[in-house]
Protein backbone atom coordinates (compact mmCIF):
# COMPACT_ATOMS: atom_id res chain seq x y z
CA UNK A 1 0.00 0.00 0.00
CA UNK A 2 2.86 2.31 0.89
CA UNK A 3 4.63 2.29 -2.50
CA UNK A 4 1.68 4.18 -3.90
CA UNK A 5 2.32 7.25 -1.74
CA UNK A 6 4.63 8.88 -4.38
CA UNK A 7 1.91 8.33 -7.02
CA UNK A 8 -0.52 10.05 -4.73
CA UNK A 9 1.77 13.04 -4.28
CA UNK A 10 2.38 13.16 -8.02
CA UNK A 11 -1.39 13.12 -8.67
CA UNK A 12 -2.04 15.92 -6.26
CA UNK A 13 0.70 18.08 -7.73
CA UNK A 14 -0.54 17.51 -11.28
CA UNK A 15 -4.10 18.32 -10.24
CA UNK A 16 -3.04 21.56 -8.56
CA UNK A 17 -0.98 22.68 -11.54
CA UNK A 18 -3.76 22.16 -14.11
CA UNK A 19 -6.43 23.54 -11.81
CA UNK A 20 -4.35 26.60 -11.11
CA UNK A 21 -3.61 27.29 -14.78
CA UNK A 22 -7.21 26.99 -15.71
CA UNK A 23 -8.90 28.95 -12.97
CA UNK A 24 -6.14 31.31 -11.92
CA UNK A 25 -7.08 33.85 -14.58
CA UNK A 26 -10.72 33.79 -13.42
CA UNK A 27 -9.77 34.48 -9.81
CA UNK A 28 -7.24 37.13 -10.60
CA UNK A 29 -8.50 38.76 -13.81
CA UNK A 30 -10.77 41.80 -13.85
CA UNK A 31 -14.21 40.91 -15.06
CA UNK A 32 -16.27 43.42 -16.97
CA UNK A 33 -18.76 41.50 -19.07
CA UNK A 34 -21.85 42.70 -20.91
CA UNK A 35 -24.34 40.90 -23.16
CA UNK A 36 -22.73 41.48 -26.52
CA UNK A 37 -19.32 40.41 -25.19
CA UNK A 38 -20.70 37.12 -23.91
CA UNK A 39 -22.65 36.28 -27.08
CA UNK A 40 -20.92 34.12 -29.66
CA UNK A 41 -19.36 36.13 -32.44
CA UNK A 42 -20.71 35.13 -35.91
CA UNK A 43 -19.79 38.09 -38.05
CA UNK A 44 -22.48 40.17 -36.43
CA UNK A 45 -25.27 37.70 -37.18
CA UNK A 46 -27.43 36.10 -34.57
CA UNK A 47 -26.17 32.49 -34.10
CA UNK A 48 -28.50 29.94 -35.75
CA UNK A 49 -27.92 27.06 -33.34
CA UNK A 50 -25.45 26.29 -30.66
CA UNK A 51 -21.87 25.88 -31.47
CA UNK A 52 -21.60 22.18 -31.25
CA UNK A 53 -21.19 20.52 -34.64
CA UNK A 54 -22.36 17.05 -35.53
CA UNK A 55 -19.89 14.23 -35.42
CA UNK A 56 -19.61 11.69 -38.23
CA UNK A 57 -20.74 8.14 -37.52
CA UNK A 58 -17.42 6.63 -38.50
CA UNK A 59 -15.71 8.51 -35.69
CA UNK A 60 -18.07 6.60 -33.41
CA UNK A 61 -17.06 3.27 -34.95
CA UNK A 62 -13.40 4.06 -34.25
CA UNK A 63 -14.26 4.84 -30.63
CA UNK A 64 -15.88 1.42 -30.16
CA UNK A 65 -12.92 -0.37 -31.71
CA UNK A 66 -10.66 1.65 -29.43
CA UNK A 67 -12.51 0.26 -26.38
CA UNK A 68 -12.13 -3.32 -27.57
CA UNK A 69 -8.43 -3.05 -28.29
CA UNK A 70 -7.97 -1.09 -25.05
CA UNK A 71 -9.36 -4.11 -23.20
CA UNK A 72 -6.99 -6.33 -25.16
CA UNK A 73 -4.08 -4.29 -23.84
CA UNK A 74 -5.40 -4.46 -20.29
CA UNK A 75 -5.23 -8.27 -20.49
CA UNK A 76 -1.58 -7.99 -21.63
CA UNK A 77 -0.50 -6.27 -18.38
CA UNK A 78 -0.87 -9.17 -15.93
CA UNK A 79 0.32 -11.55 -18.63
CA UNK A 80 3.53 -9.58 -19.00
CA UNK A 81 4.05 -9.29 -15.23
CA UNK A 82 3.45 -12.97 -14.53
CA UNK A 83 5.06 -14.20 -17.75
CA UNK A 84 7.83 -16.10 -16.04
CA UNK A 85 5.54 -18.16 -13.78
CA UNK A 86 2.69 -19.10 -16.13
CA UNK A 87 4.93 -21.16 -18.44
CA UNK A 88 4.07 -22.34 -21.98
CA UNK A 89 0.36 -22.87 -21.31
CA UNK A 90 -0.09 -19.22 -20.29
CA UNK A 91 1.88 -18.07 -23.25
CA UNK A 92 -0.19 -20.16 -25.68
CA UNK A 93 -3.46 -18.97 -24.16
CA UNK A 94 -2.42 -15.33 -24.68
CA UNK A 95 -1.31 -16.11 -28.22
CA UNK A 96 -4.71 -17.69 -29.02
CA UNK A 97 -6.47 -14.68 -27.49
CA UNK A 98 -4.38 -12.34 -29.63
CA UNK A 99 -4.97 -14.56 -32.68
CA UNK A 100 -8.76 -14.30 -32.20
CA UNK A 101 -8.59 -10.56 -31.92
CA UNK A 102 -6.32 -10.16 -34.92
CA UNK A 103 -8.84 -12.17 -36.95
CA UNK A 104 -11.39 -9.65 -35.79
CA UNK A 105 -9.07 -6.86 -36.80
CA UNK A 106 -8.51 -8.42 -40.26
CA UNK A 107 -12.24 -8.88 -40.69
CA UNK A 108 -12.79 -5.29 -39.74
CA UNK A 109 -10.18 -4.01 -42.07
CA UNK A 110 -11.51 -6.01 -44.98
CA UNK A 111 -15.02 -4.79 -44.28
CA UNK A 112 -13.71 -1.29 -44.65
CA UNK A 113 -14.68 -0.13 -41.22
CA UNK A 114 -11.37 1.64 -40.80
CA UNK A 115 -10.91 3.54 -44.04
CA UNK A 116 -11.20 7.10 -43.22
CA UNK A 117 -12.15 8.79 -46.47
Amino acid at each position, binding site marked *: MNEYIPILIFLIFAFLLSFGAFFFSIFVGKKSSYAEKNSTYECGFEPFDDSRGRFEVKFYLVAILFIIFDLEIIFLFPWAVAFSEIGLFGFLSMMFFLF*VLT*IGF*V*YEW*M*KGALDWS
Partner: protein
Amino acid sequence: MIYIPEVFMSIGFLIILIISVFVKKNQNIVLGYLSLLLIFLTQFFVLKDIFLFEEIFNNFFVIDSFGSFLKSVILICAGFVIYFYIIVKNDSSLNRSEFSMIILISIIGMMLMVSSNDLLSLFVSIELQSLALYILVSFSKEDFNSSEAGVKYFVIGSLSTCIFLFGSSLIYGLVGSTNFSEISQFMSDQYSVPLLLVVGLIFILVSLSLKISAAPFHMWTPDVYQGSPSLVTAFLSTAPKVAVFGVLIRVLVYPFGEIIVDWGKILVILSIFSMLIGSLGALRQDDLKRLMAYSTINHIGFILMGLVPGSEDGITAICIYLIFYITMNLGVFLFILNMKRDQLNVTKIKDLSGLYKTEPLIAGCLALLFFSMAGIPPLAGFISKLLILNIVIDNNLFFLAIIAVITSVISAFYYIRLVKSMFFDSPTEELDLLTNSQSKLLLSIFGLFNLSVIFYPQFFLNLCASITLSLFALR
Protein backbone atom coordinates in the same frame (compact mmCIF):
# COMPACT_ATOMS: atom_id res chain seq x y z
CA MET B 1 -9.39 -30.98 -26.15
CA ILE B 2 -10.32 -30.46 -29.79
CA TYR B 3 -13.17 -32.91 -29.58
CA ILE B 4 -15.11 -30.75 -27.18
CA PRO B 5 -18.06 -29.47 -29.26
CA GLU B 6 -17.76 -25.86 -28.16
CA VAL B 7 -14.06 -25.66 -28.96
CA PHE B 8 -14.59 -27.34 -32.32
CA MET B 9 -17.40 -24.96 -33.18
CA SER B 10 -15.48 -21.81 -32.17
CA ILE B 11 -12.55 -22.81 -34.35
CA GLY B 12 -14.95 -23.50 -37.19
CA PHE B 13 -16.53 -20.12 -36.56
CA LEU B 14 -13.17 -18.38 -36.89
CA ILE B 15 -12.49 -20.19 -40.17
CA ILE B 16 -15.87 -19.23 -41.57
CA LEU B 17 -15.31 -15.63 -40.41
CA ILE B 18 -12.17 -15.46 -42.48
CA ILE B 19 -13.86 -17.07 -45.49
CA SER B 20 -16.73 -14.60 -45.28
CA VAL B 21 -14.30 -11.78 -45.81
CA PHE B 22 -13.08 -13.20 -49.15
CA VAL B 23 -16.40 -14.44 -50.54
CA LYS B 24 -17.91 -11.70 -52.66
CA LYS B 25 -20.95 -12.81 -54.63
CA ASN B 26 -24.22 -13.89 -52.84
CA GLN B 27 -22.40 -14.23 -49.57
CA ASN B 28 -25.21 -15.28 -47.25
CA ILE B 29 -26.17 -18.44 -49.19
CA VAL B 30 -22.58 -19.75 -49.23
CA LEU B 31 -22.03 -18.83 -45.59
CA GLY B 32 -25.40 -20.35 -44.71
CA TYR B 33 -24.45 -23.72 -46.14
CA LEU B 34 -20.97 -23.50 -44.50
CA SER B 35 -22.47 -22.86 -41.08
CA LEU B 36 -25.00 -25.68 -41.67
CA LEU B 37 -22.05 -27.98 -42.35
CA LEU B 38 -20.36 -26.79 -39.14
CA ILE B 39 -23.53 -27.43 -37.16
CA PHE B 40 -23.85 -30.98 -38.47
CA LEU B 41 -20.24 -31.71 -37.56
CA THR B 42 -20.67 -30.30 -34.07
CA GLN B 43 -23.88 -32.30 -33.72
CA PHE B 44 -21.87 -35.36 -34.57
CA PHE B 45 -19.35 -34.57 -31.84
CA VAL B 46 -22.10 -33.92 -29.30
CA LEU B 47 -23.88 -37.17 -30.05
CA LYS B 48 -20.58 -39.10 -30.07
CA ASP B 49 -20.07 -38.70 -26.33
CA ILE B 50 -23.61 -38.23 -25.14
CA PHE B 51 -23.16 -40.66 -22.27
CA LEU B 52 -19.71 -39.40 -21.25
CA PHE B 53 -19.42 -37.62 -17.89
CA GLU B 54 -16.38 -35.37 -17.35
CA GLU B 55 -15.58 -32.09 -15.67
CA ILE B 56 -13.37 -30.02 -17.97
CA PHE B 57 -11.49 -26.77 -17.85
CA ASN B 58 -10.68 -26.71 -14.17
CA ASN B 59 -14.26 -27.53 -13.18
CA PHE B 60 -15.72 -24.52 -14.97
CA PHE B 61 -17.65 -26.73 -17.38
CA VAL B 62 -19.03 -30.24 -17.19
CA ILE B 63 -19.91 -32.62 -20.02
CA ASP B 64 -22.89 -34.81 -19.09
CA SER B 65 -25.76 -36.35 -21.00
CA PHE B 66 -28.22 -33.66 -19.77
CA GLY B 67 -25.95 -30.95 -21.22
CA SER B 68 -25.29 -32.87 -24.42
CA PHE B 69 -29.03 -33.53 -24.93
CA LEU B 70 -29.78 -29.83 -24.64
CA LYS B 71 -26.81 -28.98 -26.87
CA SER B 72 -28.15 -31.28 -29.60
CA VAL B 73 -31.63 -29.72 -29.27
CA ILE B 74 -30.11 -26.23 -29.58
CA LEU B 75 -28.10 -27.30 -32.60
CA ILE B 76 -31.26 -28.69 -34.22
CA CYS B 77 -33.08 -25.40 -33.68
CA ALA B 78 -30.14 -23.39 -35.04
CA GLY B 79 -29.86 -25.75 -38.01
CA PHE B 80 -33.54 -25.25 -38.85
CA VAL B 81 -33.32 -21.46 -38.43
CA ILE B 82 -30.31 -21.21 -40.73
CA TYR B 83 -32.05 -23.55 -43.21
CA PHE B 84 -35.08 -21.21 -43.10
CA TYR B 85 -32.65 -18.31 -43.69
CA ILE B 86 -31.41 -20.01 -46.82
CA ILE B 87 -34.68 -21.23 -48.38
CA VAL B 88 -36.95 -18.27 -47.55
CA LYS B 89 -36.31 -15.20 -49.73
CA ASN B 90 -36.03 -12.64 -46.94
CA ASP B 91 -35.92 -8.90 -47.40
CA SER B 92 -32.80 -6.98 -48.29
CA SER B 93 -31.70 -5.79 -44.85
CA LEU B 94 -31.17 -9.37 -43.66
CA ASN B 95 -28.93 -10.70 -46.37
CA ARG B 96 -25.69 -9.51 -44.86
CA SER B 97 -23.09 -12.21 -44.52
CA GLU B 98 -22.76 -11.70 -40.78
CA PHE B 99 -26.28 -13.00 -40.02
CA SER B 100 -25.35 -16.69 -39.88
CA MET B 101 -22.04 -15.71 -38.20
CA ILE B 102 -23.83 -14.19 -35.28
CA ILE B 103 -26.26 -17.12 -35.04
CA LEU B 104 -23.24 -19.44 -34.86
CA ILE B 105 -21.63 -17.45 -32.06
CA SER B 106 -24.89 -17.32 -30.12
CA ILE B 107 -25.08 -21.13 -30.45
CA ILE B 108 -21.58 -21.38 -28.99
CA GLY B 109 -22.74 -19.19 -26.13
CA MET B 110 -25.80 -21.37 -25.53
CA MET B 111 -23.80 -24.60 -25.59
CA LEU B 112 -21.39 -23.10 -23.06
CA MET B 113 -24.28 -21.94 -20.90
CA VAL B 114 -25.90 -25.35 -20.80
CA SER B 115 -22.74 -27.13 -19.73
CA SER B 116 -21.35 -24.47 -17.39
CA ASN B 117 -20.68 -25.53 -13.83
CA ASP B 118 -19.68 -22.18 -12.37
CA LEU B 119 -21.37 -18.84 -11.91
CA LEU B 120 -18.52 -17.06 -13.68
CA SER B 121 -18.60 -19.31 -16.75
CA LEU B 122 -22.40 -19.08 -16.68
CA PHE B 123 -22.21 -15.27 -16.63
CA VAL B 124 -19.72 -15.08 -19.47
CA SER B 125 -21.61 -17.50 -21.73
CA ILE B 126 -24.98 -15.82 -21.01
CA GLU B 127 -23.32 -12.55 -21.98
CA LEU B 128 -21.95 -14.05 -25.18
CA GLN B 129 -25.35 -15.41 -26.18
CA SER B 130 -27.40 -12.32 -25.26
CA LEU B 131 -24.96 -9.90 -26.93
CA ALA B 132 -25.33 -11.93 -30.11
CA LEU B 133 -29.12 -11.79 -29.74
CA TYR B 134 -29.10 -8.01 -29.14
CA ILE B 135 -27.32 -7.63 -32.48
CA LEU B 136 -29.69 -10.08 -34.22
CA VAL B 137 -32.84 -8.36 -32.93
CA SER B 138 -31.76 -4.95 -34.21
CA PHE B 139 -30.30 -6.45 -37.37
CA SER B 140 -32.48 -4.88 -40.07
CA LYS B 141 -31.51 -1.24 -39.84
CA GLU B 142 -34.17 0.17 -42.19
CA ASP B 143 -37.14 -1.23 -40.27
CA PHE B 144 -38.00 1.12 -37.36
CA ASN B 145 -39.64 -1.65 -35.32
CA SER B 146 -36.50 -3.73 -35.35
CA SER B 147 -34.35 -0.99 -33.82
CA GLU B 148 -36.99 -0.17 -31.23
CA ALA B 149 -37.22 -3.87 -30.30
CA GLY B 150 -33.44 -3.93 -30.19
CA VAL B 151 -33.31 -1.06 -27.71
CA LYS B 152 -35.93 -2.66 -25.48
CA TYR B 153 -34.30 -6.08 -25.62
CA PHE B 154 -30.87 -4.55 -24.91
CA VAL B 155 -32.04 -2.58 -21.86
CA ILE B 156 -33.99 -5.46 -20.37
CA GLY B 157 -31.18 -7.93 -21.17
CA SER B 158 -28.44 -5.84 -19.59
CA LEU B 159 -30.74 -5.22 -16.61
CA SER B 160 -31.12 -8.96 -16.15
CA THR B 161 -27.32 -9.34 -16.39
CA CYS B 162 -26.84 -6.75 -13.64
CA ILE B 163 -29.35 -8.57 -11.43
CA PHE B 164 -27.58 -11.86 -12.17
CA LEU B 165 -24.23 -10.34 -11.18
CA PHE B 166 -25.56 -8.80 -8.00
CA GLY B 167 -27.08 -12.16 -7.02
CA SER B 168 -23.91 -14.10 -7.78
CA SER B 169 -21.84 -11.57 -5.82
CA LEU B 170 -24.04 -12.19 -2.78
CA ILE B 171 -23.64 -15.96 -3.20
CA TYR B 172 -19.89 -15.59 -3.69
CA GLY B 173 -19.75 -13.53 -0.52
CA LEU B 174 -21.42 -16.25 1.53
CA VAL B 175 -20.00 -19.40 -0.03
CA GLY B 176 -16.52 -18.18 -0.82
CA SER B 177 -16.53 -19.54 -4.36
CA THR B 178 -18.74 -19.46 -7.36
CA ASN B 179 -18.39 -23.13 -8.31
CA PHE B 180 -21.61 -25.16 -8.24
CA SER B 181 -20.04 -28.19 -6.54
CA GLU B 182 -18.59 -25.90 -3.87
CA ILE B 183 -21.97 -24.25 -3.37
CA SER B 184 -23.85 -27.56 -3.13
CA GLN B 185 -21.19 -28.87 -0.71
CA PHE B 186 -21.55 -25.66 1.34
CA MET B 187 -25.35 -26.02 1.30
CA SER B 188 -25.23 -29.59 2.55
CA ASP B 189 -22.96 -28.53 5.45
CA GLN B 190 -25.22 -25.74 6.58
CA TYR B 191 -27.96 -26.98 8.90
CA SER B 192 -30.10 -23.83 8.34
CA VAL B 193 -29.84 -22.08 5.01
CA PRO B 194 -28.58 -18.49 5.40
CA LEU B 195 -31.24 -16.04 4.23
CA LEU B 196 -28.78 -13.98 2.18
CA LEU B 197 -27.93 -17.02 0.10
CA VAL B 198 -31.56 -17.54 -0.89
CA VAL B 199 -31.90 -13.83 -1.67
CA GLY B 200 -28.91 -14.23 -3.99
CA LEU B 201 -30.65 -17.24 -5.53
CA ILE B 202 -33.80 -15.15 -5.98
CA PHE B 203 -31.79 -12.53 -7.86
CA ILE B 204 -30.39 -15.21 -10.17
CA LEU B 205 -33.87 -16.72 -10.57
CA VAL B 206 -35.30 -13.32 -11.47
CA SER B 207 -32.59 -12.69 -14.07
CA LEU B 208 -33.11 -16.16 -15.63
CA SER B 209 -36.90 -15.72 -15.68
CA LEU B 210 -36.29 -12.37 -17.38
CA LYS B 211 -34.44 -14.28 -20.07
CA ILE B 212 -37.20 -16.94 -20.51
CA SER B 213 -39.91 -14.23 -20.09
CA ALA B 214 -41.76 -15.82 -17.16
CA ALA B 215 -44.77 -13.74 -16.11
CA PRO B 216 -44.05 -10.71 -14.01
CA PHE B 217 -40.90 -10.21 -16.07
CA HIS B 218 -42.46 -10.96 -19.49
CA MET B 219 -43.21 -7.39 -20.50
CA TRP B 220 -40.50 -7.16 -23.16
CA THR B 221 -41.48 -10.36 -25.01
CA PRO B 222 -44.52 -9.25 -27.06
CA ASP B 223 -42.83 -6.05 -28.28
CA VAL B 224 -39.52 -7.74 -29.13
CA TYR B 225 -41.22 -10.69 -30.86
CA GLN B 226 -43.32 -8.33 -32.97
CA GLY B 227 -40.54 -5.86 -33.71
CA SER B 228 -37.61 -8.06 -34.63
CA PRO B 229 -37.48 -9.72 -38.07
CA SER B 230 -39.49 -12.95 -38.19
CA LEU B 231 -36.45 -15.17 -38.65
CA VAL B 232 -34.86 -13.73 -35.50
CA THR B 233 -38.12 -14.15 -33.61
CA ALA B 234 -38.16 -17.80 -34.67
CA PHE B 235 -34.62 -18.20 -33.32
CA LEU B 236 -35.38 -16.09 -30.23
CA SER B 237 -38.42 -18.12 -29.23
CA THR B 238 -36.79 -21.55 -29.50
CA ALA B 239 -33.03 -21.91 -28.90
CA PRO B 240 -32.39 -19.41 -26.05
CA LYS B 241 -35.48 -20.64 -24.20
CA VAL B 242 -34.08 -24.21 -24.25
CA ALA B 243 -30.63 -23.01 -23.15
CA VAL B 244 -31.91 -20.84 -20.28
CA PHE B 245 -34.19 -23.66 -19.09
CA GLY B 246 -31.15 -25.96 -19.09
CA VAL B 247 -29.31 -23.40 -16.94
CA LEU B 248 -32.32 -22.93 -14.66
CA ILE B 249 -32.68 -26.67 -14.08
CA ARG B 250 -28.97 -27.14 -13.50
CA VAL B 251 -28.73 -24.17 -11.09
CA LEU B 252 -31.82 -25.14 -9.13
CA VAL B 253 -31.26 -28.88 -9.00
CA TYR B 254 -27.50 -29.18 -8.55
CA PRO B 255 -26.18 -26.42 -6.30
CA PHE B 256 -29.43 -25.41 -4.62
CA GLY B 257 -30.97 -28.89 -4.50
CA GLU B 258 -31.42 -28.85 -0.71
CA ILE B 259 -33.80 -25.94 -0.58
CA ILE B 260 -36.26 -27.29 -3.19
CA VAL B 261 -39.20 -26.31 -0.99
CA ASP B 262 -38.19 -22.62 -1.00
CA TRP B 263 -37.57 -22.09 -4.70
CA GLY B 264 -40.52 -24.41 -5.41
CA LYS B 265 -42.84 -21.78 -3.89
CA ILE B 266 -41.23 -19.02 -5.97
CA LEU B 267 -41.61 -21.07 -9.16
CA VAL B 268 -45.29 -21.68 -8.35
CA ILE B 269 -45.88 -17.93 -8.31
CA LEU B 270 -43.95 -17.43 -11.54
CA SER B 271 -45.77 -20.25 -13.35
CA ILE B 272 -49.25 -19.15 -12.24
CA PHE B 273 -48.60 -15.57 -13.34
CA SER B 274 -47.14 -16.56 -16.68
CA MET B 275 -49.92 -19.04 -17.46
CA LEU B 276 -52.59 -16.47 -16.65
CA ILE B 277 -50.96 -13.60 -18.55
CA GLY B 278 -49.92 -15.89 -21.40
CA SER B 279 -53.47 -17.03 -22.04
CA LEU B 280 -55.39 -13.84 -21.17
CA GLY B 281 -53.07 -11.50 -23.06
CA ALA B 282 -53.50 -13.26 -26.35
CA LEU B 283 -57.28 -12.99 -26.50
CA ARG B 284 -57.44 -9.57 -28.05
CA GLN B 285 -54.36 -9.74 -30.28
CA ASP B 286 -54.50 -9.13 -34.01
CA ASP B 287 -50.81 -9.57 -34.84
CA LEU B 288 -49.73 -13.18 -35.29
CA LYS B 289 -46.18 -12.70 -33.95
CA ARG B 290 -47.44 -10.91 -30.85
CA LEU B 291 -49.92 -13.77 -30.36
CA MET B 292 -47.04 -16.24 -30.62
CA ALA B 293 -45.23 -14.25 -27.90
CA TYR B 294 -48.14 -14.66 -25.51
CA SER B 295 -48.44 -18.35 -26.39
CA THR B 296 -44.71 -18.76 -25.61
CA ILE B 297 -45.28 -17.17 -22.21
CA ASN B 298 -48.14 -19.61 -21.64
CA HIS B 299 -45.95 -22.59 -22.57
CA ILE B 300 -43.15 -21.28 -20.34
CA GLY B 301 -45.61 -21.15 -17.46
CA PHE B 302 -46.51 -24.77 -18.16
CA ILE B 303 -42.84 -25.84 -18.22
CA LEU B 304 -42.12 -23.95 -14.98
CA MET B 305 -45.02 -25.82 -13.44
CA GLY B 306 -43.20 -29.07 -14.23
CA LEU B 307 -40.09 -27.78 -12.47
CA VAL B 308 -41.91 -26.86 -9.24
CA PRO B 309 -41.64 -30.26 -7.50
CA GLY B 310 -38.03 -30.57 -8.72
CA SER B 311 -38.40 -34.32 -9.04
CA GLU B 312 -36.67 -36.47 -11.69
CA ASP B 313 -39.72 -37.28 -13.77
CA GLY B 314 -40.62 -33.60 -13.55
CA ILE B 315 -37.50 -32.75 -15.48
CA THR B 316 -38.09 -35.62 -17.91
CA ALA B 317 -41.49 -34.15 -18.68
CA ILE B 318 -39.86 -30.74 -19.17
CA CYS B 319 -37.34 -32.13 -21.66
CA ILE B 320 -40.14 -33.76 -23.67
CA TYR B 321 -42.24 -30.58 -23.48
CA LEU B 322 -39.23 -28.58 -24.81
CA ILE B 323 -38.77 -30.89 -27.80
CA PHE B 324 -42.42 -30.67 -28.85
CA TYR B 325 -42.57 -26.95 -28.05
CA ILE B 326 -39.70 -26.34 -30.47
CA THR B 327 -41.24 -28.31 -33.32
CA MET B 328 -44.53 -26.43 -32.91
CA ASN B 329 -42.89 -22.99 -32.78
CA LEU B 330 -40.51 -23.60 -35.68
CA GLY B 331 -43.40 -24.83 -37.83
CA VAL B 332 -45.58 -21.80 -37.14
CA PHE B 333 -42.69 -19.36 -37.65
CA LEU B 334 -41.80 -21.04 -40.93
CA PHE B 335 -45.33 -20.20 -42.08
CA ILE B 336 -45.07 -16.61 -40.78
CA LEU B 337 -41.84 -16.23 -42.75
CA ASN B 338 -43.66 -17.23 -45.91
CA MET B 339 -46.69 -15.01 -45.25
CA LYS B 340 -46.10 -12.48 -48.00
CA ARG B 341 -48.58 -10.36 -49.93
CA ASP B 342 -47.04 -8.94 -53.14
CA GLN B 343 -43.52 -9.30 -51.75
CA LEU B 344 -44.29 -7.55 -48.45
CA ASN B 345 -44.05 -9.51 -45.20
CA VAL B 346 -47.45 -9.51 -43.52
CA THR B 347 -48.24 -10.78 -40.02
CA LYS B 348 -51.83 -9.73 -39.26
CA ILE B 349 -54.23 -12.52 -38.19
CA LYS B 350 -56.88 -11.47 -40.65
CA ASP B 351 -54.45 -12.11 -43.51
CA LEU B 352 -54.67 -15.71 -42.37
CA SER B 353 -58.37 -15.91 -43.28
CA GLY B 354 -59.45 -18.14 -46.11
CA LEU B 355 -56.07 -19.82 -46.36
CA TYR B 356 -57.84 -23.13 -46.86
CA LYS B 357 -59.08 -22.07 -50.28
CA THR B 358 -55.72 -20.96 -51.64
CA GLU B 359 -53.34 -23.51 -50.08
CA PRO B 360 -55.15 -26.43 -48.42
CA LEU B 361 -51.95 -28.36 -47.56
CA ILE B 362 -50.40 -25.44 -45.69
CA ALA B 363 -53.67 -24.71 -43.92
CA GLY B 364 -53.90 -28.37 -42.88
CA CYS B 365 -50.41 -28.53 -41.42
CA LEU B 366 -50.85 -25.19 -39.70
CA ALA B 367 -54.15 -26.34 -38.18
CA LEU B 368 -52.33 -29.46 -36.92
CA LEU B 369 -49.69 -27.27 -35.28
CA PHE B 370 -52.21 -24.94 -33.66
CA PHE B 371 -54.24 -27.89 -32.36
CA SER B 372 -51.08 -29.44 -30.98
CA MET B 373 -50.25 -26.14 -29.26
CA ALA B 374 -53.74 -26.02 -27.80
CA GLY B 375 -53.18 -29.55 -26.51
CA ILE B 376 -55.81 -31.43 -28.49
CA PRO B 377 -55.49 -35.15 -27.66
CA PRO B 378 -53.86 -37.13 -30.40
CA LEU B 379 -51.14 -34.56 -30.99
CA ALA B 380 -47.75 -34.02 -29.33
CA GLY B 381 -48.81 -30.94 -27.35
CA PHE B 382 -51.38 -32.98 -25.52
CA ILE B 383 -48.84 -35.61 -24.45
CA SER B 384 -46.45 -33.04 -23.05
CA LYS B 385 -49.20 -31.19 -21.17
CA LEU B 386 -50.51 -34.51 -19.85
CA LEU B 387 -47.07 -35.53 -18.53
CA ILE B 388 -46.57 -32.23 -16.74
CA LEU B 389 -50.05 -32.30 -15.24
CA ASN B 390 -49.36 -35.85 -14.04
CA ILE B 391 -46.33 -34.70 -12.13
CA VAL B 392 -48.11 -31.71 -10.64
CA ILE B 393 -50.97 -33.89 -9.45
CA ASP B 394 -48.61 -36.57 -8.11
CA ASN B 395 -47.15 -33.93 -5.83
CA ASN B 396 -50.77 -32.90 -5.03
CA LEU B 397 -50.42 -29.28 -6.10
CA PHE B 398 -54.08 -29.32 -7.03
CA PHE B 399 -54.59 -25.56 -7.08
CA LEU B 400 -51.82 -25.24 -9.64
CA ALA B 401 -53.29 -28.00 -11.78
CA ILE B 402 -56.71 -26.32 -11.79
CA ILE B 403 -55.23 -23.02 -12.93
CA ALA B 404 -53.23 -24.84 -15.59
CA VAL B 405 -56.34 -26.46 -16.99
CA ILE B 406 -58.35 -23.23 -16.98
CA THR B 407 -55.59 -21.29 -18.71
CA SER B 408 -55.08 -24.00 -21.33
CA VAL B 409 -58.83 -23.81 -22.02
CA ILE B 410 -58.57 -20.05 -22.53
CA SER B 411 -55.48 -20.49 -24.68
CA ALA B 412 -57.23 -23.23 -26.68
CA PHE B 413 -59.81 -20.55 -27.54
CA TYR B 414 -57.44 -18.25 -29.41
CA TYR B 415 -55.65 -21.12 -31.15
CA ILE B 416 -58.88 -22.53 -32.47
CA ARG B 417 -60.04 -19.05 -33.44
CA LEU B 418 -57.06 -18.95 -35.76
CA VAL B 419 -58.00 -22.28 -37.27
CA LYS B 420 -61.56 -21.04 -37.69
CA SER B 421 -60.41 -17.96 -39.56
CA MET B 422 -58.23 -20.14 -41.77
CA PHE B 423 -60.93 -22.57 -42.72
CA PHE B 424 -64.25 -20.78 -42.46
CA ASP B 425 -63.68 -17.07 -43.06
CA SER B 426 -63.83 -15.80 -46.61
CA PRO B 427 -60.40 -14.56 -47.72
CA THR B 428 -60.09 -10.74 -47.76
CA GLU B 429 -57.30 -10.64 -50.32
CA GLU B 430 -55.03 -13.46 -51.45
CA LEU B 431 -51.61 -14.18 -49.92
CA ASP B 432 -48.88 -14.86 -52.43
CA LEU B 433 -48.79 -18.49 -53.44
CA LEU B 434 -46.04 -20.34 -51.63
CA THR B 435 -43.57 -21.00 -54.40
CA ASN B 436 -40.62 -22.77 -52.81
CA SER B 437 -41.43 -26.38 -52.24
CA GLN B 438 -38.84 -26.90 -49.50
CA SER B 439 -40.75 -24.82 -47.00
CA LYS B 440 -43.97 -26.66 -47.93
CA LEU B 441 -42.15 -29.97 -47.39
CA LEU B 442 -40.65 -28.75 -44.11
CA LEU B 443 -44.02 -27.50 -42.83
CA SER B 444 -45.65 -30.84 -43.55
CA ILE B 445 -42.75 -32.62 -41.79
CA PHE B 446 -43.40 -30.52 -38.68
CA GLY B 447 -47.15 -31.19 -38.89
CA LEU B 448 -46.68 -34.93 -39.37
CA PHE B 449 -44.12 -35.10 -36.57
CA ASN B 450 -46.67 -33.66 -34.19
CA LEU B 451 -49.22 -36.17 -35.41
CA SER B 452 -46.94 -39.20 -35.40
CA VAL B 453 -45.61 -38.80 -31.84
CA ILE B 454 -48.66 -40.54 -30.46
CA PHE B 455 -47.62 -43.79 -32.07
CA TYR B 456 -44.32 -44.19 -30.24
CA PRO B 457 -44.04 -41.80 -27.27
CA GLN B 458 -41.99 -44.35 -25.32
CA PHE B 459 -38.87 -43.42 -27.29
CA PHE B 460 -38.89 -39.87 -25.96
CA LEU B 461 -39.73 -40.98 -22.42
CA ASN B 462 -36.75 -43.34 -22.21
CA LEU B 463 -34.40 -40.80 -23.81
CA CYS B 464 -35.28 -38.02 -21.37
CA ALA B 465 -35.41 -40.33 -18.35
CA SER B 466 -31.81 -41.43 -18.94
CA ILE B 467 -30.79 -37.80 -19.38
CA THR B 468 -32.26 -36.58 -16.10
CA LEU B 469 -30.72 -39.62 -14.42
CA SER B 470 -27.27 -38.22 -15.24
CA LEU B 471 -28.21 -34.79 -13.93
CA PHE B 472 -29.28 -36.13 -10.56
CA ALA B 473 -26.28 -38.50 -10.45
CA LEU B 474 -24.10 -35.40 -10.35
CA ARG B 475 -25.44 -34.34 -6.96
